[in-house]
């Protein structure tokens, strides 16, 4: 990779950035967040959670409510409009200029910066090669597939060497297979460029695969900030637990350091009383009647190739999702016993 593509890693700091739209609708509660230089942070949440508003505040397309500040490194950019922030943006709808060819699209930012024609041509060519778009340079945008269009959009955003790269649901418009391959490509690109990137998505798979850290948002608030592992294994609350992956809920009772679930009593540290426990499908193990904790009936068995996903109905309480690896051969109606591991369960208040 040419040296010229190595970009400075600028940290981003948001201080008390809230957003209230005209009419009084609160899109974003005041938010504090530091994004380290070179880090990829993914904003994840359902639609209307404030993730896109946050991205647009970082971009300079929206200004935060009075009192909020956006800093790129040491520079306060709160008052700078987007055209003077030097950010790269990639949109869900690609937003390529239809009246320009692929090369002209990529060259646009350099043309605006009044770069000499020869430098422009060289950098565009380098960028197109990097994105494997060399053969499409002269094509019109409507002659490209969705994946190619998004690669052009990435090239156009990166060729100007932006301080930060902002991606707003860049893969949502693509079909599943293309989404996976482009996701890998974006991952490779972000790692090799070392650029600070902010990525907005509602797809938890994308978030887990791309994010150094994930900011889970709900209803204009940050629900949790953490690495993908932290978010997955130690969700801060029920919302995060349900939004990321599949989570089972078990009802239990704690009394004097012992947790009672079903027929089992397990050592447990925590206050006495009823407790709700969260457990991942892969952390519920099939067991024999002797060493099982919970009995139930298989209500559905979905064969997924590498594993079988069972829906087990216990004697009381909601059905549990259980992932079993290997060749279980279990079918609907079979009686099974499940074991739980106290270390892999999370109590929520």
């Amino acid at each position, binding site marked *: 990779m040419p040296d010229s593509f190595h970009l400075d890693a600028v940290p981003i700091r948001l201080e008390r950035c809230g957003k209230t739209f005209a009419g009084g609708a609160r899109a974003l509660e005041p938010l504090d967040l530091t994004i380290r230089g070179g880090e990829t942070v993914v904003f994840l949440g359902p639609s209307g959670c404030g993730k896109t508003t946050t991205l647009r505040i970082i971009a300079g*397309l929206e200004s935060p409510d009075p009192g909020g500040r956006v800093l790129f490194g040491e520079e306060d950019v709160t008052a700078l409009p987007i055209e003077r922030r030097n950010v790269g*943006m990639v949109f869900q709808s690609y*937003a390529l*200029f239809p009246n320009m060819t692929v090369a002209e699209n990529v060259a646009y930012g350099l043309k605006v910066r009044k770069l000499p024609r020869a430098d422009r041509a060289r950098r565009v060519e380098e960028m197109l090669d990097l994105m494997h778009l060399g053969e499409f340079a002269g094509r019109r945008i409507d002659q490209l597939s969705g994946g190619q269009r998004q690669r052009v959009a990435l090239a156009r955003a990166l060729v100007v060497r932006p301080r930060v790269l902002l991606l707003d649901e860049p893969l949502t418009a693509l079909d599943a297979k293309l989404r996976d391959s482009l996701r890998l490509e974006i991952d490779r690109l972000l790692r090799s460029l070392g650029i600070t990137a902010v990525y907005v998505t509602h797809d938890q798979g994308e978030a887990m695969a791309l994010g150094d850290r994930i900011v889970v948002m709900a209803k204009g608030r940050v629900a949790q900030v953490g690495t993908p592992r932290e978010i997955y294994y130690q969700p801060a609350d029920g919302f995060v637990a349900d939004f990321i992956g599949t989570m089972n809920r078990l009802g239990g009772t704690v009394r004097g350091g012992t947790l009672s679930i079903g027929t089992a009593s397990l050592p447990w540290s925590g206050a006495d009383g009823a407790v709700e426990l969260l457990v991942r499908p892969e952390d519920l193990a099939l067991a024999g009647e002797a060493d099982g904790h919970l009995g139930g009936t298989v209500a559905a068995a979905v064969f997924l190739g590498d594993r079988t996903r069972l829906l087990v109905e216990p004697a009381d309480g909601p059905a549990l999702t259980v992932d079993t690896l290997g060749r279980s051969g279990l079918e609907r109606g079979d009686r099974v016993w499940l074991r739980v591991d106290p270390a892999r369960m999370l109590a929520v208040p």
Partner: protein
Amino acid sequence: MSACVQDAPLPHRPAARPPAGGGWTGEPLRLAALLAPAAAVFAAFFLLPLVRLIVIGAGGAEGWSAYLTTLAAPGHLDSLISTLALSAGVTAVTLAVSTVAGLFLVRNQFPGHALLVALLTFPLAFPGVVIGFMVIMLAGRQGLIGTVTQALGAGKLVFAYSMAGLFLGYVYFSIPRVILTVMAAAEKLDPRLEEAARSLGASSWRVVADVILPALKPALISAGALCFATSMGAFGTAFTLATRINVLPMTIYTEFTLQANIAAAAALSVLLGLITWAALAVARSVAGTSVAAAG
């Protein structure tokens, strides 16, 4: 038009083609029969009068060469040039005003917005006579502008009965339809395109030049073409303002009614039609390629 109607169904329905050697039977025959009434109306009310007009144009003492000599006649060429200049000017000014106003109206909401849009489209229904009357009330001998300039001591400014008055009237008359077209097109602009351009460092002016105008181009060309054609052929306003305004429709009227020079009038009419038609065809082909390029 009729050719399109006849051709269109056939390539899509190969099964409906007559068997080899079957001649005019089955589907094509039925289609032809169904098209006959439309063809008859088209011939009777469009083709025949047009052909008759062309023939009359050549029916004078000079025969077919009248089409060249009529244009060379004193006054006629001037008339044609001033009509072209007037229409081009009206089109340019109307497009400029309507683009700015239309974009503003689409992008900004304010109290009275709906009322303003409704008011702007009000002149759509006015005949040329009314437009002419309004120009006289504004810039005529008893007009508002004259009264104001006189009160200011600058002398009475009167320009209603000249090319300037006609220009004002045509712009006033053309703005509503162009504004509606611009607004419809501006509503379909993708705001992400502008945001993308801005993120790459483009100033507001560059966004207008590189994103907004190219996206509006097809709409502007078709609206401009209609505006141009309307200005070329409009008669009522000119007739209301003054009979000595030297535009082609007035010249044709004079030749017809006052000089009874039917052949010259017909020749001029055909020329007016041809030139306008050519201008529209050029505009359409330019718009067509840009539409294709825009995908």
